[in-house]
C-alpha cells in the first residue's frame, strides 16, 4: 500500500527555519533564473551566419527599420542553460502522475516524437506539389480512416487545430445543415457540467445557450430535455462520458429525442479515452464529435498546446464538412481544396484554417494507433476505467464522492469539498498535493459539484503509482478535515509559494519593461 516503503523523508527545511540565506538565492538544485531581458544584450548572437551578399535593395526609406527592437541574444550554452533551468520549475507527466480530470495526461510515447521528426514529414511544405507529398497525404488519410472506424462515423474533418476549434467545426456543420433545409433554429442546449468551451463555441456561432438540468445521479435529465426540445433547438452539446465521470445511460433515448425534434447531437469527445475501442460514438446516435488527439491519442500537451481536434460526422452532416480533405483515388491520394473542390464538395461550409491541420500531431497519432491496434486501444479504455474506479473506491471514505452510488465511474472520479474543516477548501488540498510531489487534480470543475476535485489517473499508471497517489491524497484530505494550519499556506516546497492571482489581474504586467531609471 505504501509506495514509499523505505519511509524516506525530504529534509529541506521550511523557509525561515534556520537555513542560511546564501549569496545567490538558489538552493542546491532549485535555481532561480532571471528573465532573458535582464541577462542578455542585443549584440550577442548564438547563431553563426554567413555574410549577406551585397545587392541593390528595392527596400528603402520608411520601409526600413530605423529604431532598435530590444531583443536580447544568447550564445548556445547560455540559451541551453536558461531554458534547462526554466524547465526544472515545471511539473510534467515525465516526473509523475498528473491526474487532471478531463485532460487525459497519459504518457507520451517517444516513438511518436521520433516519427514526427522524420524529414519526410517534418520538412515538407504544405503547398508542395501533391505528387511530391503522397506519403503525407496517405498518412492523413490513414489517421482519418482509423478515427472513422473507431467512431463508426462516415466522414471526418482533419483540419481543426484543437478541441475547441473542433467544436466550432461541428457546430458550423450543424448550422449549415439546418440552413440548407431552410431552418433557422436559434438555441443550443448544454448541460451545466459541460466544458466552458461548449457554451463559448455555441455563442461564437451565434446561438443562444440554454442549460439542460441534471438528475440527482449526475446525468442528463431526459424528461426535462424532452420537455425543452422543440423547433427552436439546433443541437444538444453533450459530453459522454460526462464530466462527472459517468456514462450517460440514456444516451440512445437522448439521441432519439434530439433527432425527433429535428435537432442534432454534438458530442464533446474530450473523454473518448474512457470508451475508445469499446464503444463507437456512431452507434450512440451522435452526429458530430471532435477528438482531442492530445488526450486520447497521446500527443504531448506541451505546456498548453499544440493540440489537434479532428471532427467525425454522421451521414447527415458529412456533405457540409470543411475543406480541405484527403481523397483516395485510383492513382494515389488527392488533397481536395479550393482549387479542385467545386464538383466534389459544393456544400462544404468553408475553411477552418490555413493549410491542412496539425500534421505533426497526425504523425504522432499514427504511431500511437499502429502501436496499440484495435486490441491495445480497447485495453486503454479498460485500464483507464479500472484505474479511476480504484481511485474512487479507495478515497470515497475520506473525501465526499457525490456520485459514488451512481454506478461505476468511467475514466475519472469526482469528489467534493464536503466535510473539510471550517475555512479549508479544495484549493488547500490541491496545494497540499503539490508538496507531496504530485500535480493536483482538476479543481472547481465541473461546476455542478461544490469545490469539485476531478481525478483522472489514465491507463498509463500502474497500481504502485496509484497507491502512492491515493496515500498522498488521503493524507492531505485528512489534514484538511482536521484543520491543519500548515495546509493553508501550502505549497512550502515548490519553486514559489502561493501566487497572488488577484494582484496579477488588477494591474496586469504582461511584458517585461526596464525598471525606471534612478
Amino acid at each position, binding site marked *: 500500500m505504501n509506495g514509499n516503503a523505505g519511509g524516506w523523508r525530504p529534509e529541506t527545511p521550511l523557509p525561515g527555519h534556520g537555513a542560511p540565506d546564501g549569496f545567490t538565492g538558489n538552493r542546491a538544485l532549485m535555481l532561480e533564473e532571471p528573465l532573458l531581458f535582464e541577462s542578455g544584450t542585443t549584440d550577442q548572437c548564438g547563431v553563426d551566419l554567413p555574410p549577406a551578399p551585397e545587392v541593390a535593395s528595392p527596400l528603402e526609406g520608411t520601409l526600413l527599420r530605423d529604431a532598435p527592437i530590444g531583443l536580447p541574444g544568447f550564445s548556445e550554452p547560455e540559451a541551453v542553460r536558461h531554458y534547462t533551468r526554466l524547465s526544472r520549475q*515545471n511539473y510534467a507527466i515525465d516526473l509523475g502522475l498528473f491526474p487532471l480530470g478531463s485532460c487525459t495526461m497519459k504518457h507520451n510515447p517517444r516513438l511518436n516524437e521520433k516519427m514526427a521528426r522524420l524529414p519526410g514529414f517534418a520538412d515538407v511544405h504544405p503547398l508542395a506539389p501533391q505528387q511530391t507529398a503522397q506519403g503525407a497525404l496517405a498518412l492523413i488519410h490513414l489517421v482519418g480512416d482509423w478515427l472513422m472506424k473507431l467512431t463508426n462515423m462516415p466522414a471526418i474533418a482533419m483540419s481543426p487545430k484543437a478541441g475547441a476549434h473542433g467544436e466550432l467545426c461541428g457546430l458550423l456543420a450543424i448550422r449549415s445543415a439546418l440552413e440548407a433545409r431552410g431552418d433557422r433554429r436559434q438555441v443550443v442546449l448544454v448541460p451545466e457540467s459541460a466544458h466552458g468551451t461548449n457554451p463559448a463555441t455555441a455563442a461564437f456561432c451565434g446561438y443562444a445557450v440554454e442549460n439542460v438540468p441534471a438528475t440527482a445521479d449526475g446525468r442528463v435529465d431526459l424528461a426535462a430535455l424532452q420537455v425543452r426540445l422543440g423547433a427552436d433547438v439546433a443541437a444538444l452539446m453533450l459530453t459522454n462520458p460526462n464530466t462527472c465521470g459517468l456514462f450517460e445511460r440514456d444516451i440512445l433515448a437522448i439521441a432519439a429525442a434530439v433527432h425527433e425534434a429535428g435537432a442534432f447531437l454534438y458530442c464533446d469527445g474530450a473523454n473518448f479515452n474512457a470508451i475508445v475501442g469499446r464503444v463507437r460514438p456512431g452507434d450512440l446516435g451522435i452526429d458530430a464529435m471532435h477528438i482531442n488527439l492530445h488526450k486520447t491519442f497521446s500527443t504531448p500537451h506541451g505546456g498548453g498546446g499544440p493540440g489537434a481536434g479532428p471532427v467525425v460526422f454522421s451521414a447527415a452532416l458529412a456533405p457540409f464538412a470543411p475543406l480541405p480533405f484527403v481523397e483516395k483515388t485510383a492513382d494515389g491520394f488527392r488533397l481536395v481544396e*479550393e482549387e479542385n473542390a467545386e464538383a466534389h464538395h459544393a456544400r462544404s461550409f468553408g475553411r477552418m484554417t490555413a*493549410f491542412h491541420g496539425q500534421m505533426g500531431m497526425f504523425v504522432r497519432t499514427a504511431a500511437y494507433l499502429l502501436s496499440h491496434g*484495435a486490441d491495445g486501444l480497447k485495453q486503454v479504455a479498460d485500464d483507464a476505467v479500472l484505474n479511476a474506479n480504484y481511485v474512487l473506491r479507495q478515497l470515497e471514505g475520506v473525501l465526499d464522492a457525490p456520485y459514488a452510488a451512481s454506478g461505476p465511474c468511467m475514466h475519472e472520479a469526482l469528489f467534493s469539498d464536503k466535510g473539510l474543516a471550517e475555512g479549508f477548501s479544495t484549493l488547500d488540498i490541491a496545494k497540499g498535493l503539490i508538496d507531496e510531489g504530485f500535480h493536483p487534480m482538476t479543481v472547481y470543475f465541473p461546476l455542478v459539484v461544490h469545490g469539485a476535485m476531478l481525478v483522472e489517473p489514465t491507463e498509463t499508471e500502474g497500481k504502485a503509482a496509484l497507491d502512492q497517489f491515493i496515500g498522498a491524497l488521503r493524507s492531505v484530505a485528512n489534514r484538511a478535515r482536521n484543520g491543519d494550519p500548515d495546509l493553508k499556506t501550502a505549497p512550502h516546497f515548490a519553486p514559489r509559494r502561493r*501566487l497572488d492571482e488577484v494582484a496579477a489581474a488588477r494591474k496586469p504586467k504582461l511584458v517585461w519593461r526596464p525598471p525606471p531609471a534612478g
Partner: protein
Amino acid sequence: MLDAIGAPSVDALFADVPEAARLSGLVEGLPLHAPELAVERQLAAMAARNQPAGDRPFFLGCGAYRHHIPASVDHLIQRGEFLTSYTPYQPEIAQGTLQALFEFQTQVARLLGCEVANASMYDGSTACWEAIVMARRITKRGKAVLSAGLHPHYVSVATTMARFTGDRLETALPTLADGAPGDDLARLLAAIDDDTSCVVVQNPNIFGHVADLSDLAAAAHARGALLVAVVTEPVSLGLIRSPGEMGADIVVGEGQALGVGLQFGGPYVGLFACAEKHVRQMPGRLAGETVDAEGRRGFVLTLSTREQHIRREKATSNICTNSGLCALAFSIHLSLLGERGLRDLAALNHGKAVRAAGRLAAVPGVELVNGPFFNEFTLRLPRDARPVVRSLAERGILGGVSVGRLYPEGDGRNRGLVVAVTETVTDEDVAAFADALGEVLA
C-alpha cells in the same frame, strides 16, 4: 484491483453502456497492436514517399517558410518538463512554462511593435480572424475591409466564419498587375467608412510586396476604424519597420518561420499583439507577473475572466488549448538570434532573394512583378504556372507556389509564380532552378 472496487470484471464497469451499443469484440477493420520496430518501418516507408525540402532546390513560401533551425531548439523543447506539462493552471509548479510565455509575449510585442502580446494562438489564419472579431468588439462596428494581398487561406477562414457570425467583409482578388500594391491601397482607402471596424492588410503581402502602412493607418483612424496588420514571415521584421511602428492597432502573425519548421502545415503558432488599452478585449491566454506569499516575483495566467472556462458563453473567444510548445520553439530560436542575429538573418534572406530574383527574371519570357520585396517575390510566366510547377518537381526542383493553386478563379492571375528565397537556398539551387525553368518554358 477489481476486489478493491467490488466489481466482478472490467466489463462490469461498463454496465451503464446500453447493451445495443456494446461491441462484442474488437473494432472491426483495424489491425492488432504492433511492435515499435514494425511501426517505425511502416511510418518511415510513408515518409519516404514524400520529397523533403532539404533534399533539393526548394523555393516555397506563401505563409510557411523554411529556415535553418539551430539544433538546440528542438533539443530544448523535447525536455519532458516542457513537452509533457499541461496548461499552467497550478502556477507554483509551472513557473518554467509561465516565465517562458512571459518572455515570448515580450519578444512578440517588441518584434511586432506593439505594447502587449498574448501567449499564442493556433496559427496565423485563426489569429487573423480573431483580430477581426476583436476589432468589432472594440469599435462596435460590423464591417471589415480585407486587402486583396491577404493570404487567400486567411481570407477563406474569415469569410467562412463571417457567414455565421454576421460580420460583413469586403474582399477583393489581387491582380498580378499590381507591381506595387497601389490599386489595393486605393481600394482600401475608398472602402473605409463610418461602419468600418477595421482594415486588414498583410505585409509583406501574398505576392511578397512590402508597403508602408502609415497612410492606411492614419486613414483608418480618421474614421474611427482600426488597422489590423498580418505578418506571415516574422524574419522580415529584422529589416522592415514593424506594423506597430507604422500605426497598426492589432498585429497578428504566423510565427512558424522561427523555430517551428514546415511540418506540412501544422502545428504552427499564431502571434497576437495590440495596444495595452485593448487587452481586455484580446483573445487567448496571457501570462502576467505577480508575487508569491513571500513577495518573490512569479508568473501566473491572468485576465482569465475573458476566457471560456470562467465566462462560458460570454467569453471573448472559445480558445482553450493554444500553441505553447511552438511558442517556446519560436522564443528559443529568437533568443539564439537576438537582435543582431535577426537583423543579419533578414539581410541574408533579402540579399539572396534579390540576387535570385535577378537571375530568374533573366529567364526568357519571365518577368519580376514586384517593386519592394523582402525574401519572396512573384514572377509572371508566359503561361499557367501550375503545370510548370509540376514539371519542375519532376526535375527535382520545388520551384515556388503557383498563384493558380491559391486563386482558382483564373483571369490571367494563374501565370503568377510566388518564389521564396531564404538562407537555406544556395547559389547552386538558384542556378538549377533558373536552368530548369528555362527548359520547361522553352
